[in-house]
């Protein structure tokens, strides 16, 4: 009967499926092994303080922020600190994004020979590996503590990720357009203006805006080493258990980041659609 034939065919197809059970079991075993290995280091150290009490303090502080600090118009207030953070992130992103352009071009395999590209990539990886606070300390030697050091740190930290994205876009570039521009008799400047820029610009801008978003979040790290921004007051307030101040600063930061995120998503979808 027809139905029998169909069910037989189904069974045959099932039988033809690759037998992955052993592989799956092996992967599961490895994962469990890795997890067991990694949980071996966990231990609950005694903080000397009641953890729950502190958690309650934090939650309480976040819901009862220090409104005086939150709306303080002077340079000590949350408003100015947020402005400083935004400025650090903004200028840092721009400087980093500009520095990243030549680096990305000399690391793209369709522009330069492979060995050069590999050297470029290793250099970018090395720049990425050094943690932000180490850069912060290095720059403080140059500029002294303050937002300027933070800005330089941010720009150096941005280079890694921005470069990685740039390289992908450059390698995806349609080079046939350049050939047709060549055939039409365009000079180098015209080729860059009409052949390369229109292809890369939206993607580059999108990456830069995304990185700005990240930089704003990461700017708290700078506070650790005194490189400006909202991080330092936040960490001071936390170390001295002034949870209301922590609440005020966190509230400001969360609202700011949410606003920037909404804006950046909007601009990026617009860029992607053209």
């Amino acid at each position, binding site marked *: 009967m027809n139905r029998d034939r169909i069910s037989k065919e189904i069974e045959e197809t099932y039988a033809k499926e690759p037998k992955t059970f052993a592989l799956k079991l092996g992967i599961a075993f490895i994962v469990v092994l*890795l*997890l067991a290995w*990694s*949980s071996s*280091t*966990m*231990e*609950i*150290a*005694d*903080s*000397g*303080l009641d*953890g*729950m009490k*502190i*958690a309650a303090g*934090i939650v309480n502080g976040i819901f009862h922020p220090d409104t005086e600090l939150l709306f303080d118009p002077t340079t000590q207030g949350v408003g100015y600190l947020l*402005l*400083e953070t*935004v*400025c*650090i992130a*903004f*200028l840092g992103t*721009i400087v980093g994004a500009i520095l990243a352009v030549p680096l990305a071009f000399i690391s793209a395999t369709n522009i330069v020979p492979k060995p050069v590209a590999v050297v470029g990539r290793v250099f970018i*990886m*090395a720049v*990425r*590996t*050094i*943690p*932000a*606070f*180490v850069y912060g*300390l*290095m720059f403080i*030697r*140059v*500029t002294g503590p*303050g*937002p*300027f050091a*933070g*800005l*330089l740190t941010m720009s150096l930290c941005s280079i890694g990720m921005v470069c990685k994205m740039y390289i992908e876009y450059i390698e995806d570039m349609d080079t046939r357009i350049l050939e047709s521009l060549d055939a039409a008799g365009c000079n180098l400047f015209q080729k860059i203006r009409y052949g390369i820029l229109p292809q890369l610009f939206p993607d580059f801008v999108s990456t830069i805006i995304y990185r700005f978003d990240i930089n704003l*979040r990461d700017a*708290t*790290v700078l506070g*650790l080493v005194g490189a*400006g921004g909202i*991080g330092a007051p*936040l*960490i001071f307030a*936390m170390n001295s258990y002034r949870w209301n101040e922590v609440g005020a600063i*966190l509230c400001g*930061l*969360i609202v700011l980041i*949410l606003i920037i*995120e909404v804006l950046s998503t909007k601009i990026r979808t617009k860029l992607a659609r053209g």
Partner: protein
Amino acid sequence: MNTSEMSLFDKIFKPKPYQLPNGKVSYERASRTPLILLLLLIMTVISVKVTGFSFETLVKRGHEFFTILFAMFPPKWSYLNSVWGPLFDTIKMSLLGSFIGSVLCVPFAVLAANNIVKNKLVLAVTKVFLSIMRTLPTLVTALIATYIFGLGTLAGTTAIAVFTFAYVGKQLYEIIDTVDMGAYEACEAMGLSKPQALWRSVMPQVLPTYLSTSLYCFEGNVRYAAILGYVGAGGLGLILNEKIGWREYSSVGMILIVLFFTVVLIEYISHYIRSKLT
């Protein structure tokens, strides 16, 4: 062009009319570029003022940047043996943290997906919750965790788990949003319950991207975990901070080199697995 289509910008800077050969009138909108450039310029000027950016200092004292950098070379090889412990702590922290975070975020991601949950309130609440979790700087989470769990790797693991939770959660609900719902509807029509239908139809579509996102997050977390030690949350950052404090830059160089090769290795492995997944 009727006025309702015009934005405020077009009302101020009138579009340029063109008479086409067939008699119709076409409008070219005024370019937005000058306005955007002006805004960027204003923001740059403000930023330069606020941050005290000066090329002069940079040129004059720029070489100071390399003092520490050159002091790191040659690295102190004898220090290598004391790096392994904290290094493995860092990897363990990121591995466990990434795992916990990416597992915990699954139910939240399902609740935040437009095509599965139809209740607007639930959607909005989960999305806002995930957004707020994402705004918390990892360092702050780590600091809070050290107060609650004490100094050590547990605090770092918690911070990484929270970050992974928020990041993978957002990516996952965006992936689920774009899933082909035909299979899900077919499963429901066959009489499967909602969770069963989810498991049978949505899960296989989402799984590769989900695993790939989690792995990608793990890659980044290894780098992050090295910072967390600064606030006492265990791992490489702890000794890094210590050695910088003592100005033993050759040991710092050693730590950074080890970190570099670890990150390269992990990225290579994860890249390989991710290319197999998709």
